[in-house]
């Protein structure tokens, strides 16, 4: 995974609360079992006047010339709510969005971002208002956006900064988890299914 350290980009404003993953990538745009080929379907309901014909909606932020190439998206509260589909994050990443700044995030979407190297940054609505539409510099190590401080959980920060693969990281503890499981098997035998009936 590509490390996320600093990023400077124009900030595309999407000033809505509760942007759900059905809006980020509708189910009908998930046409294969692959994690790629999703960028065209990103925000399809809003980005296109006619989704099937891919007729652009000139009023949608990402279709406006000043936001072409934007790598930061700014939105409202509870961004990424709804379906757990990781396709929402894959679509954002493939389109070129590396950072979402929002007032808050839905928890599953937030984790999906961390696992894919996208920085989900929570800031107050008033700060987001000052950033949206302008250029912003995100410094993850310093935990600032244009000097505004933000909080991020330590492990999430480390995973992003170092571009770590969570599975590789966890598999380093294979012996410890196996030892735990041996004890657990004695304590909670009903959890372990030797063979399916």
């Amino acid at each position, binding site marked *: 995974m590509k490390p996320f350290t600093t990023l400077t980009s124009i900030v595309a404003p999407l000033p*809505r*609360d*509760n942007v*759900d993953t*059905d*809006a980020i990538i*509708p*189910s*009908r*745009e*998930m*046409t*294969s*079992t*692959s*994690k790629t080929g999703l960028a065209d379907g990103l925000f399809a*309901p809003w980005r296109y006047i006619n*989704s099937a014909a891919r007729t652009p909606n000139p009023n949608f932020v990402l279709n406006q010339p000043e936001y072409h190439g934007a790598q930061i998206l700014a939105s409202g*509260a*509870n961004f990424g*709510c*709804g*379906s*757990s*589909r*990781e396709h929402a*994050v894959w679509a954002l990443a493939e389109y070129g969005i590396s950072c979402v700044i929002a007032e*808050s995030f*839905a*928890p*599953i979407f937030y*984790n*999906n971002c961390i*696992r*894919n190297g996208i920085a989900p940054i929570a800031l107050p609505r008033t700060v987001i208002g000052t950033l949206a539409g302008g250029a912003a510099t995100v410094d993850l190590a310093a935990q600032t956006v244009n000097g505004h401080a933000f909080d991020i*959980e330590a*492990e*999430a920060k480390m995973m992003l900064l170092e571009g770590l693969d*969570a*599975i590789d*990281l*966890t*598999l380093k*503890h*294979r012996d410890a*988890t196996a030892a*735990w*499981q041996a004890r*657990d098997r004695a304590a*909670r*035998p*009903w*959890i*372990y*299914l*030797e*063979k*399916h*009936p």
Partner: protein
Amino acid sequence: MIAIDRIFLHERTGAAALNSMASANRAVVDPTRVFAVMDHIVDTRPGRGDKTMMPGGDTFITETRAACHAAGITLFDVNDPDQGITHVISPELGIVLPGCTFVAPDSHTCTQGAFGALAWGIGSSEAEHAMATGTLRVAKPKTMRVTFSGKLTARVTAKDMILHLLADHGAGGGKGYVVEFAGEAITALDMEARMTLCNMATELAAFSGIIAPDAATLDYLKGRRYVPDPLPDWGDLRSDDGALFDCEINIDASAIEPMVSWGTSPSHSISLLGTVPDNADVKALAYMGLTTGQRLADLAIDVAFIGSCTNSRISDLRRAATLVKSKKVAEGVLALVIPGSSSVKRAAEAEGLDKIFTDAGFEWRESGCSLCFFAGGESFPPGSRVISSTNRNFEGRQGPGIRTHIASPEVVAASAIAGKITVP
């Protein structure tokens, strides 16, 4: 790190996760504790096979089947007698257990918190992590208790309780919390109603919902296929007396009324007797074709849909059936019932519920997630206003331009007969 006891996959994302693991040369560490089912895009019309209404959907089914077989995962296939929606069949089979950790790449996994399990929805990468390592890396969630004191009045259901909570506290009202539902009105709920309530904890942006197991939980589970016999001592799985929560909410259950959503978030919900609030979101009003101050009762509907992991269990169908028995669906209204599992379907047919629904003019289908969401195949007529027993009324959720009002199956059934949104 937290040990993961049960993992449940489905065909919409199962193949992507398993194929990705295979290409990274990672094995499923304990396939006996991983299950999968065809529920999300599987056809619900009679006589179904691998073909789906969604173009290319059969690829998801065949690839998931192949990947499950290769990994040694127990799969409830398209026409398996145990097939059904994950959050309906997992409890039916006793795959979820009190005190276990349970994850699935599906946001409504919180449904299964009704059994005192820590059950939550994850993405595909997390599903791969859980399968490859038997664990997940989880920041400890905050704790919230929502206490419903007093008794529900007649005609008020678990669906109304959760919509009431959403209306009061918003779609971010439970952000990151494990929400314990407690109080007299919770312990009075049967297990299926508890599942309906916990199902929509995710709509509060909660990490999950959970209810302490009690005698009703054990009675439900006893004798089911994957449940140990004798039952282990699960009696101590509850919050300590005097436990401190990061947040506490108290709700008077007796004041809750039958609810319906007006907007494009489940938190956009009001009493069926109420009107669209003055401060209603403008974009939501425009999408829904409504105005502030408007009554929802008596609003004409085009479609009535009973189904989904929220409200498609046998008790839901029984209650809905009593309201349509010997009546007819209103002229011009499309009405459907999609049982939550093949087992629910068989039980309903044994009781004659299918006949009650079809005599009234409802379609009676095979089980699956069906039209809870639009996957690119089957949809309702363009611009339809739908009264739906599902969980999400997002823009376009049930199809481009479709206007969804979520409510209990009782409200859906009564509205189907009246042709307009109706108090049952």
